[in-house]
């Protein structure tokens, strides 16, 4: 399947096929599926995460696989229950951030001229303002909770997507089929919806995945600072309480290691999925892989950087 076929592909089936063909993408997707499963069924199976089940700061044991936290709550139960909010918020923010980025970036790239100038300055300003301090200042003024965290992450996170998608739209704008559509007298809205956006699908998906990684990390960071709703159980608030209950200075590693590892595993899975997609959708990498396989099959050693014949065997 070549890259253009893929971009136009028949929806979900094409993506599913693409994932199965690539080892990295498959590993990422499986890991992600596991977390998604926990997020969906976890809260029904695990029980009450805030129940006091034993002595505070107990090390992992048969009764409590990941020990208990500073308040005597079961860490594993909290981890399972926290998965849902953390993942859901991450994906929602990831989607919203790309949606806004696409709106701003594609408009700027397609219309060009003054519209482009104004929108570019606008998004570049947001890009250069340090996101974390801005997010903290905004969140401090709003009532704490997942909604606030999501809102500030969207406000501080959309600009990067706008920049990437603008350059994509700029490149597509110069293509012949768009010129043909303009000459044919199609409306701007239709050209954007039917010609430009469908051809950006693979980039958009990659952006959503990348933004989700950002959103989960930043969300955990804000909650760690106490800007989330600290009475609600999420990965971030688990870390907040671990820090507050001086987990480090009492040596109770089990209160902070699991939540951080889960954040990293989800981020890693998403990154794997993304680089897998990249190898499938990027014609350069695809071509390179094709030639490598071809050369190796013929018993020749490919060169280091570009796959051309260097040494004849």
């Amino acid at each position: 399947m070549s890259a253009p076929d893929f971009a136009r592909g028949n929806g979900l089936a094409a993506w599913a096929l693409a994932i199965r063909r690539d080892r990295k993408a498959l590993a990422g997707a499986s890991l992600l599926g596991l977390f998604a499963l926990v997020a969906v069924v976890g809260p029904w199976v695990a029980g009450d995460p805030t129940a006091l089940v034993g002595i505070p700061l107990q090390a992992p044991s048969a009764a409590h696989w990941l020990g208990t936290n500073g308040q005597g709550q079961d860490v594993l139960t909290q981890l399972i229950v926290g998965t849902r909010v953390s993942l859901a918020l991450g994906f929602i923010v990831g989607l919203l951030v790309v949606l806004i980025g696409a709106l701003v970036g594609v408009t700027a790239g397609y219309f060009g001229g003054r519209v482009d100038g104004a929108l570019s300055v606008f998004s570049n300003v947001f890009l250069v303002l340090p996101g974390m301090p801005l997010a903290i200042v905004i969140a401090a003024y709003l009532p704490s909770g997942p909604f606030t965290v999501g809102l500030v992450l969207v406000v501080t996170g959309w600009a990067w997507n706008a920049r990437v998608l603008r350059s994509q739209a700029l490149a597509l704008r110069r293509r012949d089929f768009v010129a043909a559509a303009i000459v044919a007298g199609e409306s701007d809205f239709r050209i954007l919806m039917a010609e430009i956006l469908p051809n950006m699908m693979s980039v958009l998906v990659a952006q959503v995945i990348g933004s989700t990684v950002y959103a989960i990390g930043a969300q955990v960071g804000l909650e760690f600072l106490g800007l989330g709703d600290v009475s609600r159980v999420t990965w971030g608030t688990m870390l907040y309480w671990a820090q507050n209950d001086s987990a480090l200075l009492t040596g109770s590693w089990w209160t902070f290691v699991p939540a951080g590892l889960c954040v990293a595993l989800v981020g890693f899975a998403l990154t794997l999925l993304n680089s897998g997609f990249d190898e499938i959708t990027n014609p350069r990498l695809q071509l390179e892989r094709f030639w490598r396989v071809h050369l190796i099959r013929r018993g020749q050693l490919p060169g280091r950087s570009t796959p051309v014949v260097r040494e004849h065997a």
Partner: protein
Amino acid sequence: MRYLLKRLGFYLVAAWAAVTINFFLPRLMPGDPATALFARFKGKLAPEAIDALRATFGLTEGPLWSQYLTYLSHVLRGEMGVSIAYFPAPVSQVIGTALGWTLFLAGSAVVLSFVIGSLLGVAAAWWRRGWVDTWLPSALVFAGALPYFWLAMAALYLFGFQLGWFPLGHAYADDSVPGWTLAFAVDVLRHAALPMFTIVLATLGGWLLSMRNTMISVLGSDYVNLARAKGLSPARVVLRYAARNALLPSVTSFGMALGFVLGGSLLTEIVFSYPGQGYLLVQAVRNQDYPLMQGIFLVITLAVLGANWVVDLVYLWLDARTRDSAS
């Protein structure tokens, strides 16, 4: 020169945007900002403190635009009001003492990470599909997915608490005397080593991958092939010909990474009780010290903008094309 002036103009616009956001934030709270703000401090604040707060935000009688002008003139004179948590110390003074530590920690970490990461990227691209190329990117991407502050917690637990190799926090030991002495410098480095290490570890992967990917395409270009054909030594081809040009995209993203790393290092500071902006910021959040919070945001923003301008200078020096079109 025109290029630099254009960039400078952009940073001025960005700084103005930051100040304006700062002005409108308290006014975004539901209801009358003054009342809402003071309701939160009921009974906790002296009347003088409330007056100072009112003055800081320009929450005076009068139309919005005159309040805005008052606020702008305050900021231009470097007056960011009076801190609530450290009353009656002015915000600029509270921030000033902590700014040096943050710039030292985050600045050195960013530069270290950039240099090491880019060199590793060059190595990965040159020895394509060698062990650097196969294992390091995945391992570092995993490390990069870990939250900064979590890496800090894990490192502190392992190297500070369990093994006792490094101090458990703060910028220098209680018994050492600040000054330009060797003993004090060693002490500061010992305290900074662990936080710096965690920031570098968390950001290394990005530099490596970006350098590797650009290097791969640059290594395939004609002028590199020509350099090879001329029989130049591999080290010269890789470093002087390929790496210098492959560095350009990394330099461009360096400016943006600065703000991002600074944000992450704020959280690292909290874990290590490092007396920088992050530590101040969390105190400000806990005490609802809004003037201090906004002052920190403004100062960090200005630092990032200034650093970005320096990056533009470096870019100009590296990329002959921009230099020629600029002069």
